């Protein structure tokens, strides 16, 4: 529970890697925003990185496919791969289920 409390105290930092406006990327952005709006109530940062524009940024995060959602903070880093259409899976991965 402590962890849970501890975690909830830290502001959620998310980073979504996409490829231009490829279909799954567009869908992933829309899904990510909807989930954050609904479940995190503004206590979060969602950064969207277009790998086509910034290929080097993905390198540091070990990105190998897009779209990939990365939970940067709180640790541990978690990644969700795909277009984020399964909301429960996304929340589970973010530790907010």
């Amino acid at each position: 529970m402590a962890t849970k409390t501890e975690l909830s105290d830290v502001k959620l930092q998310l980073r979504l890697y996409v490829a231009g406006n490829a279909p799954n990327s567009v869908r992933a952005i829309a899904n990510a925003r909807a989930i954050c709006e609904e479940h995190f109530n503004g206590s979060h940062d969602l950064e969207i990185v277009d790998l086509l524009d910034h290929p080097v940024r993905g390198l540091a995060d070990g990105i190998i496919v897009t779209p990939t959602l990365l939970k940067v903070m709180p640790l541990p880093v978690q990644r969700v791969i795909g277009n984020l259409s399964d909301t429960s899976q996304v929340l589970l991965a973010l530790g907010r289920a």
Partner: protein
Amino acid sequence: MTTGAVLSTRDLAQRLAEAEATIEALLSGQIDAVVDSKSHTPVLLAQAQEELRRSQKRLRDIIDGLGPSMFVGLMTPAGILLEANRPVLAAAGLQPEDVMGKLFEDTYWWSFSPESRARLRATIERAARGEASRYDVQVRAAHGEFIDVDFSLQPLRDETGAVVFLVPSGTIITERKQTENALRESNENFHHLADNITDVFWIRSPDMRDVQYISPAYERIWGRPVNTLYSQPLQWTDHIVPEDRARVDAAFATLKGDVPNIDVEYRIARPDGEIRWVRSRGFQVRDAAGTLIRLIGIITDTTEPRNLQAQLMVSDRMASVGTLAAGVAHEINNPLAAVMANLEFMSESLATMGPHPSATWLLGEFKEPLEEAREAAQMVRLIVRDLKIFSRSPADEPTGAVDVKAIMESSTRMAWNEIRHRAQLVKHYGVVPGVKANEARLGQVFLNLIVNAAQALPEGRAEHNEICVSTRLEGKRVIVEVSDTGSGIPPEIIGRIFDAFFTTKPVGVGTGLGLAICHRLVTDIGGELTVQSEVGRGTTFRVALPVAEEPESKVAQPVEHVPGTGRRGRILVVDDEQLVLQGVKRMLFKEHEVVAVRAAAEALALCAGGDKFDVILCDLMMPDMTGMDFHEELSRVAPHLLDRVIFMTGGAFTARAQQFLSETPKEHIEKPFRPANLRAIIQRYLR
């Protein structure tokens, strides 16, 4: 957590979970891009697939858009067909699976011909080695039809240069082939026609500067090779005789402009100097827009027709002169008969006057002048008879058997004025039968040959030169020769002397038509006119004529007068000419009883009335009732007198008279006649 190669169990589990999620996302189609592990750049998956799909579709559309008339495919270097444009398959009634994955040479298209298949196999093997091929070949299309295809096989190489694919393609050329064949056939037909017509056919550029076609007849007419005309098109006009050139140039200048066709006749000179007449017709050819695209034309050799026309004109002129001469002869003969009869009467009267002193004086004074007058009259008679020979006989047909010697005699007399101061005339008349000819025509021929012979000799050396005329029989032909001792005809022109307009005489002396006409006249009656000549020695013209089958026309042959031996007879003389009547009466009245009447009707009345006559001398041509009418009437009213009739003829026969004389076995005597001849003939009837 440590960095490095060692991963904690937790890390490993996370990595595995991530990998698993990644694969799951990939499989469920949720991945857009994969980061290339070397370049670290994202590669868009869906877009790449879409692009590939689109470009594949574009390629297929292009290939299929080629339609059924062009085949394009793709195959392995071994020749296994991987792709082919669908419309071509559909056109042959094939499904893709019928051909895809199969050896190309085993497919439907090639299956009919082992040769084609073998050739294709060899071509594929060459293509697999990198060698492209292209050839026309026949393949099988739908419904067992065959189509001609322009086939090509190209190797496709990868970046290392290895042949990875082969691209077969084929374009249907059946229509092109048909068009080519039709064009070739049409071209062949044109050449066949154009090359074989006797006229020259030509095609030239609108400015006349190029010769696009000229038929080989040009060589025959111009006597020059066609090739030189292709290389030097303007040479054409070089051979037009200078007098005609401006006229021809003017005509063609208008053809180059807006005159749609021209028709011009002109003369050309051949390399051997011969002049030929040609008629040239030219036409403009315009395209649909009305632009002048070429000029075409036909050139006809009109030399022969012109010659014939000229010959006809000359021989017509000669014929009308002949008709005129015959008329004149007739007009002269009647008064001449009277002159001769009266002269004869006077000299005989003088001779029978007895030994009276005044008679002796008269005889001494007038005997010689009378003799001279008689001789002169006799000469007039011969001249008139010669004239008649050159007149045209009615139908202008052979007049039966003709005595060539008599005609030659007449001809030499007519030409005597040309001969006498140039040569001595030598005659060698062999005994020959009559020939089948027309007197007047044959007379023209002989006269022409004699005059030519005379004109070949210089004037004033008559004793050194000779003109020889001869007749002889050779088999079934009578040979008449006219030779001279003139300068002879050079071999290079002897072949042309029978050509019309060919003359060696100065302008104005000869028309150049004489020998041409002679040749035609002789040929027309089945004879032959040939020439032999030696330069410096002289020339011989030889006329070979067919012997007549029918006997010579019956002309009363004069019998020498045996004076004072006949019995006295009763003679009826019928002639519309008073002078002739008087003359004949004077000739005969001492020996016979002479009844002279001026009209046949009157004579007929006498005969019908029962008068007896031993001889009826009747003129043939009389104005009211002719001798022929008289003869016919007589056969009705007094047939027993028919064989007593002797006709007197004066010349100019009508067609009817000619026919009458040849059909009626009647004796006739030609005016003017010598009294002695007349008396002798009458005596025969009294015996």
